[in-house]
């Protein structure tokens, strides 16, 4: 009887662990793939775990965000089969008008690819809609 209860509790704990890892999008053994980084003047509120897409297809996630020389250094974990050209552009976009932020990579045409640990040189910070609207309003007057 007691043995059955113990087994049940252990099974419950395992399920909980599995759920929290899945929901929290954590990786136990470190993610598969390779890392590259990009420097942005502004992250626009992107978070660890945000998606990285190429042509609308998810190819990786944001692994970490840190401050470097008053700029944001965003490390991306990309799938190993996805090669990024040296002249690709990484831009921070918003799903819809107020949706979550993600990083979009526009592939380049260079023959050189960014090696693991390398840097995407070309970046484009998110467009500040408020800023743009105020500019347009000022132009009108």
């Amino acid at each position, binding site marked *: 009887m007691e043995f059955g209860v113990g087994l049940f509790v252990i099974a419950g704990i395992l399920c909980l662990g599995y759920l929290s890892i899945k929901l929290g999008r954590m990786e136990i053994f470190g993610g598969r793939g390779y890392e590259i980084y990009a420097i942005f003047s502004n992250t626009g509120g992107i978070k660890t775990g945000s998606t990285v897409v190429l042509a609308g297809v998810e190819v990786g996630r944001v692994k970490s965000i840190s401050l470097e020389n008053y700029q944001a250094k965003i490390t991306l974990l990309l799938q190993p089969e996805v090669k990024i*050209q040296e*002249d690709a*552009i990484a*831009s921070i976009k918003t799903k819809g008008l107020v949706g979550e932020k993600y990083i979009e990579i*526009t*592939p*380049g*045409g260079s*023959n050189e690819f960014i090696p693991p640990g390398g840097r995407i*040189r*070309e970046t*484009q*910070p*998110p*467009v*500040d809609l408020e*800023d*743009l609207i*105020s*500019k347009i309003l*000022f*132009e009108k007057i």
Partner: protein
Amino acid sequence: MSLIRLWILFLLLFGMTTPLFSGEPQEQLQQTTDKVLAILSDPNLKSPEKAKERRELILRVVDERFDWEEMARRCLARHWVQRTPEEKREFIHLFKELLQQVYMDKVEAYSWNKIQYEGETIDGNYGTVKVKIFTSKEQPIRVEYRLLKKGPHWLVYDFSIEGISMVNNYRTQFNEIIVKSSYRELIKRLKTKVSQP
């Protein structure tokens, strides 16, 4: 004697540090911008009959600083490698015409009050220069130039206005047209766009 030595030391130090205040990319970009501004403010070229001549003068100055081939290559991205040398030449020409058409009117229409240089970064052969352009409008326009060093010259290969990169914008548009229809279609559209007055 020691005073002279001190003076020489001062001269040496001063002479060596002056170029450091603004690095090469900014210095070269500033030279180009100053030349363009001089042409724009030249009273002899203000009349409508001189408009064409003035445009050509500006273009010649801009030509020295802009790397059209690099820009065109980056805008076509993946589709650039598949082009024949002949097609590449045609595309560079059309692309140049397109940019001129889009931006020349703006350059000529604005009254340029002041250009403020906001700093530069150099990373190997790559550099960026940030500027703020003050026009008659209340808010300044933020422009960032991206330059690539070729020989002694720093050449512009991309610029972003209010954070939006020109190359990224055209790369997305061109790719969409090529994937949806064909490269020929893109050329056709560019030609019609360019031939519009």
